[in-house]
């Protein structure tokens, strides 16, 4: 990597860590609130970030300012994504932090963040050592680079609109549940 590439990576990382901490994402107790329906900050931070980046990229592409085809889209492996996600979710609710937020927790003095980071390393070692046993599953059900729009057979613009509507609905629901909890 060149010096300027490293500088860009560092600046983007600082912004990432800064806004995670600003949103309270370095606090395991706050994140846990998402799973006990007492604090919806995780949903609000995550989906407003997704909407912002998605809409920004969509319109920059539409205006011809950015070549959207150059942006990396993760390939889909149907079952590994779903099952890997479920395994991840179990660890998430048990540990109270995710890999990125554990680093923010650790960098703000939380020792549970450090413990979670060490656990992540151990889990990756376990996975790699046992890789031969899961290799066929790991590469199973490949669908290639496929987006929600491709899947539904609609234009990218309509897919973006659908995600916006779904996220706004989720925000409304979260606000309603929080209001009801506050009233009790």
């Amino acid at each position: 990597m060149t010096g300027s590439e490293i500088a860009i990576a560092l600046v983007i990382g600082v912004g990432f860590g800064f806004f995670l901490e600003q949103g309270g994402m370095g606090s395991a107790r706050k994140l846990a609130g998402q799973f006990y329906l007492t604090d919806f900050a995780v949903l609000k931070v995550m989906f407003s970030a997704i909407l912002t980046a998605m809409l920004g990229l969509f319109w920059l592409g539409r205006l011809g300012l950015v070549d959207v085809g150059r942006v990396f889209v993760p390939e889909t492996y149907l079952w590994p994504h779903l099952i890997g996600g479920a395994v991840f979710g179990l660890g998430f609710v048990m540990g109270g932090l995710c890999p990125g937020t554990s680093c923010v927790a650790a960098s703000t003095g939380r020792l549970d963040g450090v413990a979670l980071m060490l656990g992540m390393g151990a889990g990756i070692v376990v996975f790699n050592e046992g890789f031969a046993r899961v290799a066929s599953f790991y590469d199973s059900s490949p669908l290639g680079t496929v987006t929600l729009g491709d899947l539904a057979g609609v234009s990218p613009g309509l897919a973006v609109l659908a995600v916006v509507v779904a996220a706004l609905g989720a925000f409304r629901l979260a606000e309603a549940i929080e209001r009801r909890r506050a009233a009790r």
Partner: protein
Amino acid sequence: MTGPSPRQERPYLDPYLAGIGLGLVLLAAFVFVGRGLGASGAFASVVASGASLVAPEHAASIPAYAAYAPEGPRSLFDEWLVWEMIGVFAGGALSAWLAGRFRRTIERGPRVTDRARLALAFGGGAIMGVGAKLARGCTSGQALSGGAVLSVGSWLFIVGAFGAAYLAAPLFRREWT
């Protein structure tokens, strides 16, 4: 100018505003680097570098290690995600320091011990390490970044992760209440 004293803890930013800030950072990564944010990939790189340092022949024989560190430990600092995560540490610490939120503590509910909380954090991390490897990414690389470019796999990851977390949540309620 005097900074906020460590005892005056400022409240967190409005979550929607924090999310918009995060989204603009993610957008900058898309536009200027052509890729999204990540976290678990940096952990995988560190593990792979460590493995190729401790047991080079063994690590080279397992594709899951080799994919991350083809040339051994020196390549760690050729990884975009490693630099980005160094930035995350600095950015998190900076934000907490500015807001007077830096605390040397172990976050937990009143009914569990520090030791139990650390064990649960370690165990949860280990399970997430396996899950993130299987799903080729975590909440950063899949949910946030892949989600914003509408990758089907990333949305399957979101469904799987939050579905399982809600199902398992009653098992860990004591950790927080």
